C-alpha cells in the first residue's frame, strides 16, 4: 500500500478529502477522487474495507456473485497513488470550515505490522480466538479474514484475549506481531468530508412475535445470504441450522420491523428488501433445487428500479415463486421437527390460514446505528426524523454543514447502484473544494529509463518465494531452486523468504541489476494479487514491466495439494518450466496512451443535462450543451412541486440562468447531432444547429447523455375524452396554478399504473406513486371536503415517501387495490366521469362518480432519440429503449464505451432529485477521466499483421465490441484505443493474422510445451 508521507504534517495545504466508511459507496467515492487526482484518506472502523456488500451472496437483478463484482474495486484501492487507507480508524472531531477543515482521527492498534504480514494464516490456526474476524453467522472462517479478498490483506489481533504474546510471536514467520502497537491520534487537514457510514440491518430478535433468535430455522435475510454464500458457514450449501438438511419449503416475510407503527418498528420503507427476497428465492431455486417451494409474504411488492419489474415477472412466471399479500402475525415452532408454522390472514377472503415451512427468512431493513448518530452530533450535521443524514432538497449529497457530503444508505435506504451514483456525486462535490494534485504521469513516476533488451541473449532469473511455510512447508525449496537453475537460459535461481516483503523485493531488484537479468520468473502466489507489485519492481530495475512471469505455486499448488508433497513438487516443476518457457517468449510491451481533449459534450438541456454541465463548467471545463428544443428545461419545466413541497419552478429558473450565463458553457439550442467519430478522449461530433441548421463540429474528450424521457400518454381510461381526465403532471399544474378549480371539486379519483406494468410497457415508472400521493395530499389540503380515491396495484412509496403515504391515509384518502386482470373502467357520459371497479376486500363492484380523474401515466423512453444516439455512438439500450449502462450494479452512469456517460431519465425513470444526483455523478466520472492528460489503455491489445490478413471479416463479426474494421488498404484494422483485450478475434482468425499482446500464441504454446515437454 502506498502511503502519503505528508499527511502527518499539518503545514501542507488542505489538499485532502476525508472519506468515512469503506463500504462500496466509500470505495467508489475514494476511487473517483483518486482518479481525478485528489488525495484521499479513507477511514473505516473495521479491520478491512468492503462494508455490507461483501457479506452478500449474490446481487439482484443479475444474480451475480457479489465478491467477484466488488473485489476488483477492493484491490484497486491498494494501488492508487493518491490514496491513504486507514482501517480501524474513527473520526473524533472536525473543526474549521469547507476547504479548511482539521480532522482528528483515532486509530486503534492492530498489533500486526501490515508491511510484514503476508496473511499466511498461521496465527489464526494456532490462536483462533485471538485473531479477529467479523463472524456473522459463521462458526468457521476459511481464513482469519472475513472473506478471502480482504483489503488490506492482513490480520488483526485482539490483545485483550492474548495471554502469551511471545507464543504468538514465535508462530508468526513474517515477524509481523507488533505488541507495542498503541492507539494513535492524528490530526489531518482536509478540504472536504464524505460520509458513507452505511447502516445496520435490523436485528429482529428483540421482536416478540417472529421467533428470531428463538427458533433455529428462522433466520434474517443477511443470515440466509451467509448460508448460501460460498464463503459462508456451510460452504455455500443451503441447509437448515437445526438438522443440517436441505429445506423443502422456505418462506420470506417482508417488512419485518419496517413500515410499521408498533414497538420496535420504523415507519419508513427500506427500499431494497422486496428485491432482496425475490433474488434469494430465485437463487434458492436456481442453485439448490427447482423443487424447493418458495413463498413470499408481502404488503406491497416494491420493484421500482430499472428493469426490476421484469425481475418480478420472471420470479413469478419462470421460477414459480408464490406471492401472498399478507402480513403474518403468528409464528410458531414444532418442537419435534423444528418446522415453522405461519398464521396469516388473506385480504380477499377474510380467512385465517396456517401453513408449515421448513425455514423462514425475515426480510429486515436498514437501521441507523448509534455510532452514526454520535458521529453526526460530533460533526454538527442535521439528521432527519429517522436519524438518516438530512440533505438539501435539490442535492441529495449536500448536508447541513458546508463541505460535508454524504452518500449511500447513511442518507436514505437504497440499493447498490443508487449508492454508487451518490458516491460519485459526493466525490464530485467534494473535489470542487480543492485543486487537483500534481499529475504523476505513469511514464514518469521516478523510474529509470527502460533498458533495450531486444538484442540481448536471454538472461532469466528465477526467484522462488517460500511465503513463510505456505509454499516452503510443502514444496521442497532446494529441489525447486535446483530444478529451475537447470533450465536453459536461467542464470540465477534462488529462494527468497516472503518474496513480497520489502526486504526480498530489494534483494530481487539488486539481483536483476548485478546479474544483468532481462527476464524474471517469480514462483509465489497468484498473479491476480501480486503481478502489479512485481511489474513495478521490474520497472524500478530498468526492465519493461511485461518481462515478468508469475508462477502460482501457492494458491494453485501448495494450498490445493496439502498432504501430497511429492505430487505437488512434480506439479511445481511443471509449472516453473511453463513459466520459464513463457517468459522466454515475452517481449517488451508499451501501454497504449492517448492525449485527452479537455472539453465535454452534454446532450440534453433538461434538469439533468444542465446540472451536469454546470458542475463541469464550475471546474473549468469547457462544455457544449446541446438541446434539440428551442429552450432549456426539459420535462422538469412542467413540474411545480416535489413531494416534500419544494418549488421546482424557482429552482429551475435559477439553474437555467446559471447555465445560460456561464462563461464555460456554450448552449446550443435547436440543435441535433448528425454524426460522431473518434476514440475515447478524442471524440468528434457533428451538429446541425440554429434556425438555419448550420453544420458545426465539436471536439470533446467526454460525452454525457441526458436526453431524458417522455411523459407517457396511453390511450386508456378516457384520457383525452374530458378536460377533467388528466395526467398527474397536469394535475400538479392544476393544483398549483388553478387552486379554485380544486376547491370546487367534490370527488377525485386517481388510477395508478395507467399504461405501465402491463404488456407493451412492462416496467414500473417509479415516480407515479409518489406523484399521486403528493397531488392527493395537496388537493386534500386545499379542499378538506374533497373525497379522494386512489386505485393502485402496489403502492411504491419507497424510502421516506412512506411517511407521505401514511399521512395520506390518515387524512382519509382512500386507497383501493386492483389487479391487472380486473382493471377499473371509466365512463364519460353527459360531461360526467364515472369509475367502475372491483373492490377486492368487499368483493363487489363499486361505482364512483368523480369531478376529476387523474391518471398516473409515468414516463416512457424517448425511443427516437435513444435509437439515433445508440446508432451513432455505438451504445446499447434496454428492451424498453432506455440507455443501458456498462454495469447495472457498480457502474450505473458509465456506458460501455469509455468516455461516454449517461444520467437522468435517459437511463431509467426517476424523480428530479434522483436525476440531479445522477447528473452530479456523471459529471464526476467525466471529470475524473478528463483529469488525466492521457489515457493508459494497457498493453493487452490485438494487432493485425496485414501481410497475413485476407480481409475475411471473421474478426469483424467475432469481436464482442465491434472494434475491427476493414481499412482503406483492404485489411482488418483494430484500434488499440478501443480494443478491450479479450483475444476472441485472435482465436477465430483463420489466417492467424492477429496477435494479442501479452498473451501471444507462441507464448501460450511455449507454456503448453513447458508443462508437457518431454512427456512424449
Amino acid at each position, binding site marked *: 500500500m502506498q502511503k502519503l508521507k505528508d499527511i502527518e504534517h499539518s503545514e501542507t495545504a488542505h489538499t485532502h478529502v476525508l472519506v468515512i466508511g469503506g463500504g462500496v459507496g466509500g470505495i467508489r467515492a475514494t476511487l473517483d477522487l483518486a482518479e481525478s487526482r485528489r488525495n484521499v484518506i479513507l477511514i473505516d472502523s473495521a479491520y478491512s474495507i468492503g462494508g455490507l456488500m461483501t457479506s452478500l451472496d449474490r446481487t439482484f437483478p*443479475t444474480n*451475480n*456473485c*457479489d*465478491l*467477484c463484482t466488488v*473485489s476488483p474495486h477492493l484491490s484497486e484501492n491498494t494501488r492508487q497513488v493518491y490514496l491513504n487507507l486507514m482501517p480501524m480508524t474513527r473520526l473524533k472531531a472536525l473543526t474549521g470550515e469547507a476547504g479548511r477543515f482539521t480532522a482528528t482521527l483515532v486509530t486503534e492498534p492492530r498489533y500486526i505490522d501490515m508491511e510484514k504480514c503476508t496473511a499466511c494464516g498461521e496465527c489464526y490456526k494456532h490462536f483462533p480466538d485471538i485473531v479477529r474476524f467479523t463472524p456473522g453467522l459463521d462458526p468457521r472462517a*476459511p*481464513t482469519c479474514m472475513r472473506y*478471502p479478498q480482504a483489503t488490506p490483506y492482513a490480520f488483526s489481533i485482539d490483545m485483550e484475549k492474548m495471554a502469551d504474546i511471545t507464543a504468538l510471536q514465535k508462530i508468526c514467520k513474517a515477524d509481523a506481531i507488533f505488541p507495542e502497537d498503541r492507539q494513535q491520534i492524528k490530526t489531518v487537514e482536509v478540504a472536504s468530508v464524505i460520509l458513507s457510514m452505511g447502516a445496520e440491518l435490523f436485528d429482529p430478535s428483540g421482536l416478540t412475535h417472529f421467533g428470531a433468535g428463538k427458533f433455529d430455522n428462522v433466520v434474517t435475510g443477511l443470515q440466509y445470504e451467509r448460508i448460501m*454464500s*460460498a*464463503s459462508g458457514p456451510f*460452504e*455455500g450449501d443451503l441447509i437448515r441450522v437445526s438438522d443440517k438438511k436441505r429445506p423443502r419449503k422456505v418462506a420470506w416475510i417482508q417488512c419485518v420491523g419496517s413500515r410499521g407503527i408498533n414497538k420496535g418498528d420504523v415507519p419508513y420503507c427500506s427500499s431494497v428488501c422486496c428485491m432482496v427476497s425475490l433474488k434469494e428465492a430465485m437463487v434458492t431455486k436456481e442453485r439448490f433445487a427447482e423443487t424447493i417451494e418458495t413463498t413470499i409474504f408481502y404488503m406491497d411488492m416494491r420493484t421500482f428500479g430499472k428493469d426490476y419489474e421484469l425481475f418480478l415477472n420472471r420470479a413469478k412466471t419462470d421460477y414459480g415463486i408464490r406471492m401472498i399479500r399478507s402480513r403474518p402475525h403468528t409464528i410458531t415452532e414444532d418442537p419435534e421437527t423444528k418446522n415453522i408454522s405461519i398464521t396469516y390472514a388473506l385480504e380477499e377472503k377474510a380467512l385465517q390460514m396456517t401453513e408449515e415451512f421448513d425455514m423462514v427468512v425475515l426480510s429486515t431493513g436498514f437501521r441507523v446505528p448509534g455510532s452514526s448518530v454520535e458521529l453526526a452530533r460530533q460533526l454538527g450535521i442535521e439528521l432527519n426524523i429517522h436519524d438518516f443524514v438530512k440533505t438539501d432538497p435539490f442535492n441529495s449529497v449536500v448536508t447541513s454543514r458546508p463541505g460535508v457530503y454524504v452518500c449511500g444508505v447513511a442518507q436514505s435506504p437504497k440499493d447498490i447502484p443508487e449508492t454508487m451514483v451518490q458516491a460519485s456525486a459526493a466525490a464530485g462535490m467534494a473535489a470542487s473544494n480543492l485543486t487537483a494534485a500534481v499529475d504523476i504521469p505513469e511514464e514518469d513516476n521516478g523510474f529509470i529509463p527502460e533498458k533495450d533488451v531486444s538484442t540481448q541473449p536471454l538472461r532469466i532469473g528465477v526467484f522462488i518465494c517460500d511465503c513463510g511455510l505456505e509454499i516452503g512447508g510443502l514444496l521442497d525449496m532446494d529441489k525447486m531452486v535446483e530444478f529451475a537453475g537447470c533450465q536453459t537460459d536461467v542464470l540465477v535461481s534462488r529462494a527468497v523468504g516472503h518474496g513480497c516483503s520489502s526486504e526480498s523485493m530489494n534483494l530481487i531488484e539488486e539481483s536483476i541489476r548485478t546479474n544483468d537479468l532481462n527476464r524474471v520468473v517469480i514462483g509465489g502466489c*497468484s*498473479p*491476480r494479487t501480486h503481478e502489479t507489485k512485481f511489474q513495478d519492481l521490474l520497472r524500478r530495475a530498468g526492465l519493461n514491466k511485461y518481462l515478468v512471469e508469475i508462477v*502460482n505455486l*501457492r*494458491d*494453485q*499448488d*501448495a*494450498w*490445493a*495439494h*496439502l*498432504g*501430497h508433497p511429492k505430487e*505437488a513438487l*512434480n*506439479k511445481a516443476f511443471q*509449472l516453473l518450466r*511453463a513459466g520459464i518457457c513463457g517468459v522466454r517468449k515475452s517481449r517488451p510491451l508499451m501501454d497504449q496512451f492517448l492525449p485527452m481533449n479537455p472539453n465535454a459534450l452534454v446532450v440534453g438541456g433538461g434538469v439533468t443535462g444542465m446540472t451536469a454541465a454546470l458542475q463541469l463548467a464550475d471546474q473549468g471545463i469547457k462544455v457544449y450543451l446541446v438541446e434539440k428544443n428551442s429552450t432549456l428545461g426539459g420535462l422538469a419545466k412542467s413540474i411545480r412541486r416535489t413531494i416534500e413541497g419544494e418549488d421546482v419552478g424557482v429552482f429551475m429558473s435559477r439553474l437555467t440562468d446559471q447555465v445560460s450565463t456561464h462563461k464555460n458553457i456554450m448552449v446550443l439550442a435547436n440543435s441535433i447531432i448528425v454524426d460522431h467519430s473518434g476514440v475515447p478522449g478524442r471524440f468528434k461530433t457533428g451538429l446541425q444547429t440554429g434556425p438555419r441548421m448550420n453544420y458545426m463540429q465539436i471536439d470533446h474528450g467526454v460525452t454525457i447523455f441526458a436526453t431524458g424521457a417522455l411523459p407517457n400518454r396511453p390511450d386508456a381510461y378516457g384520457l383525452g375524452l374530458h378536460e377533467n381526465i388528466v395526467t398527474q403532471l397536469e394535475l400538479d399544474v392544476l393544483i398549483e396554478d388553478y387552486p379554485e378549480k380544486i376547491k370546487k371539486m367534490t370527488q377525485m379519483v386517481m388510477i395508478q399504473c395507467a399504461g405501465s406494468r402491463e404488456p407493451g410497457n412492462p416496467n414500473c415508472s417509479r415516480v407515479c406513486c409518489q406523484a399521486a400521493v403528493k397531488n392527493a395530499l395537496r388537493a386534500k389540503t386545499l379542499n378538506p371536503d374533497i373525497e379522494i380515491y386512489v386505485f393502485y396495484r402496489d403502492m411504491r412509496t419507497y424510502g421516506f415517501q412512506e411517511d407521505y403515504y401514511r399521512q395520506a391515509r390518515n387524512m382519509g384518502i382512500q386507497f383501493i387495490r386492483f389487479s391487472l386482470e380486473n382493471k377499473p373502467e371509466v365512463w364519460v357520459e353527459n360531461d360526467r366521469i364515472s369509475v367502475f371497479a372491483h373492490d377486492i376486500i368487499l368483493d363487489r363492484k363499486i361505482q364512483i362518480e368523480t369531478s376529476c380523474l387523474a391518471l398516473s401515466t409515468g414516463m416512457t423512453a424517448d425511443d427516437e432519440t435513444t435509437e439515433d444516439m445508440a446508432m451513432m455512438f455505438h451504445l446499447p439500450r434496454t428492451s424498453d429503449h432506455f440507455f443501458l449502462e456498462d454495469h447495472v450494479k457498480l457502474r450505473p452512469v458509465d456506458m460501455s464505451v469509455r468516455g461516454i456517460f449517461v444520467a437522468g431519465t435517459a437511463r431509467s425513470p426517476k424523480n428530479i432529485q434522483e436525476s440531479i444526483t445522477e447528473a452530479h455523478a456523471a459529471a464526476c466520472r467525466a471529470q475524473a477521466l478528463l483529469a488525466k492528460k492521457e489515457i493508459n489503455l494497457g498493453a*493487452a491489445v490485438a494487432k493485425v499483421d496485414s501481410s497475413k490478413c485476407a480481409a475475411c471479416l471473421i474478426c469483424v463479426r*467475432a469481436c*464482442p*465490441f465491434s472494434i475491427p474494421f476493414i481499412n482503406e488498404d483492404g485489411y482488418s484494422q483494430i484500434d488499440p484505443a478501443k480494443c*478491450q*483485450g*479479450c*483475444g*476472441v478475434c*485472435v*482465436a*477465430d482468425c483463420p489466417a*492467424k493474422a492477429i496477435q*494479442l499482446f501479452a*498473451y501471444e*500464441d507462441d507464448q*501460450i*504454446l511455449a507454456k*503448453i*510445451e513447458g*508443462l*508437457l*515437454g518431454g*512427456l*512424449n
Partner: protein
Amino acid sequence: MENFEPEIIAFCCHYCAYTAADMAGSKRLSYPTNVKIIRVPCTGKVDALHIMSAFEKGADGVYVAGCLEGDCHFKNGNTRAAQRVAHVQKILQDLGWDTQRLAMMNMSAGMGEVFARTACEFTEKIKQLGPSPVKQMNTDSYRQTQR
C-alpha cells in the same frame, strides 16, 4: 492402467475460473495435482490450435473454464469458447477419440468448490478413459520398433 496419472491442461479465464482456482486454494480445497492451469484473459482467446497442441504434446485431457453464461467480462467470449470446444470435439470424434477428453466448464470467481469438484470429476473421467491415443500410438510404434 492401475497407476495411470493423466496430464490435464485447464485453460482458465482471468476473471472467473482462474480466480475460482485461487479461491479453491485459499480455502484449502483439495483436487488432483494432474490439473495444471494456463491463464488466458478470456476463454474466447483459447484457440483450437492450443487445444490440439496440448493433446499433441501429450495431454490426456483438456478443459476450458470460463465465466458463467451471461457473465462473461467480454460479453460473449465464453459462449464463443463453448462453440469452439464443440468444434474441436467433433474433430476428435472424427479422429476416433473419445470426445470426453475435452470439456467446457463455467464457473464464477467465487466458486472455489466448483473448481475443485470439477477438477476431481474430470481427472476421474480421464483416468477411466486411459492415456490419450497419442501416447498409446507412441507406445505402439515403440513396441513395433522393438520387434
